[in-house]
Structures are given as structure tokens and as C-alpha cells.
């Protein structure tokens, strides 16, 4: 028989994939580089693998949700990402959708329990 915990992990990682985008957009009002974003998100309860986040940041930049710039002043050159006005609009829309989804899911789960 399939392992319950393992199955939950597989489905959970699928569920998380989309929410990571919302998490990333929420944290980039001020420019951050990739690894600092990993730490911030982890502290807020959204663990994300750097190997997933870095390619994702590039993709979001390509979709014009984020803008990037290199900071070469420090000892270690770092690429900083910040949300664009377009990204901000998209983020606001996503938040509304997420809340609606959350409400609907809560209702479903409550009625199951009742």
C-alpha cells in the first residue's frame, strides 16, 4: 500500500508550486536577491528550494512581473529582483483569487466535517 505521508508530500509539492509565485511577488516590493528571498520565505512558513526559486525568478522576469539588476558593489555580485507595476497588478488580482479559493475550500471542508 502507498505510504500516506509520502503521497501527501507529492500532492503538497504540486499544490505549493503555484503558491510560491504568490509568495515571491508578495516579498518583492523591495529588491531582494535570490538567497535572501529563500530565507525570508522560509521564515514566513513557505519553504522553497533554491534550485526551484532561481529558475522561477528568471521566468517571472521574462513574463515582466519582475525586474532585475546586478549589484556589483559588494564582494559577491548579486542579482536583485523587484516587482514591476505590472507584477503588482497581477499580484493584487491573485490575492483576490486566492482569498475566494480559500473561502470556497474552507466551506467545502467545513461541510464535510458537519
Amino acid at each position: 500500500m502507498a505510504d500516506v505521508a509520502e503521497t501527501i508530500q507529492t500532492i503538497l509539492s504540486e499544490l505549493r508550486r503555484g503558491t510560491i509565485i504568490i509568495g515571491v511577488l508578495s516579498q518583492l516590493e523591495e529588491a531582494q536577491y535570490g538567497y535572501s528571498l529563500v530565507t525570508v520565505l522560509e521564515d514566513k512558513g513557505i519553504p522553497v528550494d533554491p534550485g526551484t526559486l532561481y529558475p522561477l525568478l528568471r521566468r517571472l522576469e521574462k513574463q515582466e512581473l519582475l525586474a532585475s539588476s546586478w549589484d556589483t558593489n559588494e564582494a559577491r555580485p548579486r542579482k536583485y529582483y523587484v516587482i514591476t507595476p505590472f507584477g503588482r497588478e497581477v499580484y493584487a488580482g491573485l490575492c483576490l483569487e486566492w482569498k475566494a479559493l480559500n473561502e470556497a475550500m474552507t466551506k467545502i471542508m467545513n461541510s464535510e466535517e458537519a
Partner: protein
Amino acid sequence: MEVIDRYVHAVIRRLPEGMREDIRKELHGLIEDMLEEQAAGPVPTPEEAEQVLLHLGHPAAMAAKYRGHERYLVGPQLFESYLSVIKVVMIAVIASLSVIFVVETALRPNEITDQFTSYITSIVSAASQGFVWVTVVFAMIEYGIRKKTPSEYGSMSWRPSDLPPIPDSRAEIKLSEPIAGIIFTVLFTIVLLSGAELLAIYTTASGELSIVPFINFDVLYRFWPFIVAFGVAGVGKEIYKMLVRQRTAGLLAYHIIFSVAGVIFAGFLLSEPGFWNPAFMEQLQATGIFIEAGNEFFEPVSRIWETVTGNLIYLIILITLIDIGSEVFKWLRLKKAGPITINIP
């Protein structure tokens, strides 16, 4: 640390040139940040570096995430057909060169060593040409499919009316048709490229074998890039047929364009000065054939030669028109019959 450089290099060598430098810097920064946080002491050890790299995952997987899609020259979707076409082309190449070899050996048995050497080198070069061109055609089809497939996050608009129709058995193309087509195309191309001197009159009227070729192959060989291009386009058409296995408007259009281009090329080729063996009649007379058959044949044969060489293009045009006409007719009849209807009770 060397192992980090090696890891980063292993990732970026799998990425397009334009992305490499940026990702190299970015990955270096990431790995150093991770090391700094996870290292126990102020100077990270090689073991700690390895732990970080293991956490990031295999370089190929990492590169795949950056690319966003898997890269294939010929993907799994097409690979089976690709293998079949390669096999058919190889068989056709070997068969046609073997026929040429056998004929040449029969004609000049004392040159067998030279002929065998040229037979082997021809097989190697023709087989590699065939391999390369089939791969190019398939890679282009693969690229076309990739372009049409939506990316992971991109959305694509489509209409239900764009859905391909349920395969219509009346429009179905039997697998034997494209296979025969490939064999014929390869054979024809190879004969034009390396066996044209065998298209000749063979006579032993003078006691020993004389060969009078129809075509001046020096002129023919000047056109070899066109001949290769037509061979490739022809095999491409058969591959398309093999993949679609259906008569479609696109296939019909391809067929018509290919045929018309072929006729135009033939027109240029046949009207090229010196394409036909200019000394054909003189050489034929020198073989002594007319002494044996009677001198009164010289005039009529000469006239037939003039007529055939002067008018062959019209015959080619006629055959092509009949072929296009019959294909269009078949297509129209299929259209007129209407789409197949499925009755739902």
C-alpha cells in the same frame, strides 16, 4: 572551490549561450550564500560544499529547470518513425548502389578492384548523407511541434474547431506508400548522382562492348546540389505522409509545389547546352551498329534522337499534369463525400 566551479560549469554548458554568463554568476552567488549559512566554521570545508551541491540536485536537472523544457533533436514522440525512415533510407541506399556496382562489374569485369573501392566509399558517403538529411528533416518537424506546444506557464488559445478530425479511413494512406516513395526517391537520386553513365546504349556490334551514354554527365553533375535538394525534399514529403497517414490539403499542396518545382528544374536541366551527349550519333556510328543493322537506319535513328531529346520535357510536363490532376481529383472526391458522420442513437 574547484568543485563549485565544476558544478556551475556542468549546469551552464547545458544552457543556451545567451543565458550562460548571467546564470554562472547567479549560481556562484547562490552556492556561496548557502555555504556561508550552512558552514560550521568561518571557512567552509569541501565536504560542506558537496552537501550544498547535493542539495541543489543533479546539474542536468538544474539546467532543465532553467530551460523550462526538455531538449530533443528528435523527441520520443517522433523517434520510432525516425528509426523506421533511417532504416528504409539505408536499405534503399545500399540496394541502389549495389545495383550500380553489379552492372558496372558486369560491363567491365577487369576493373573490379576500383569499382569495389568506389562502391564502398559511395555507400559510406551516401549513407552519411542520408542519415544527416533525414535527421535534419526530423529535427525541423520536432522544432515545429515544440513551437506549437504551450510552455509550462504560457497559455495558448485554441478553438474546438481546430481539433483534428477523426481519421477517415477513406483518406488513409497505407504505410507501404511512403516506404515505396522513399525507396524510389533515394534510388532515383542516387542513379542521377552516381549512375547516370549507365543510362546508355550497350552494343557489341564491333565485336567488343561499346557504351554510348545518352547524357553528358559533366553537365549533369554541375547540378548536383539541386539533385540532392530535390532528393531531400522528396524524402521529406514521404516522411510527412508517414507521420500524418492521411490525405490532407497540406500534403496535396506540398505535392503540387514539389512536382511543379521538379518540372521547372527538369526544364532547366534538359535545355542546358550539352546536357544530352552531343556526340551521341557519331559515337553510335563508330560502334559499327549501323554496318550490322544496315545504313538506312542511320537517318531514322538520328531523327528519333532529335525528337526525343527535344521533346522529353513536354512528356514530363504531361505526366506531371496527369499526376497532379489525379491527386486533385482524389482529394475533391474525398471532400465531396463529406465528413464521416457518426450517428449517436
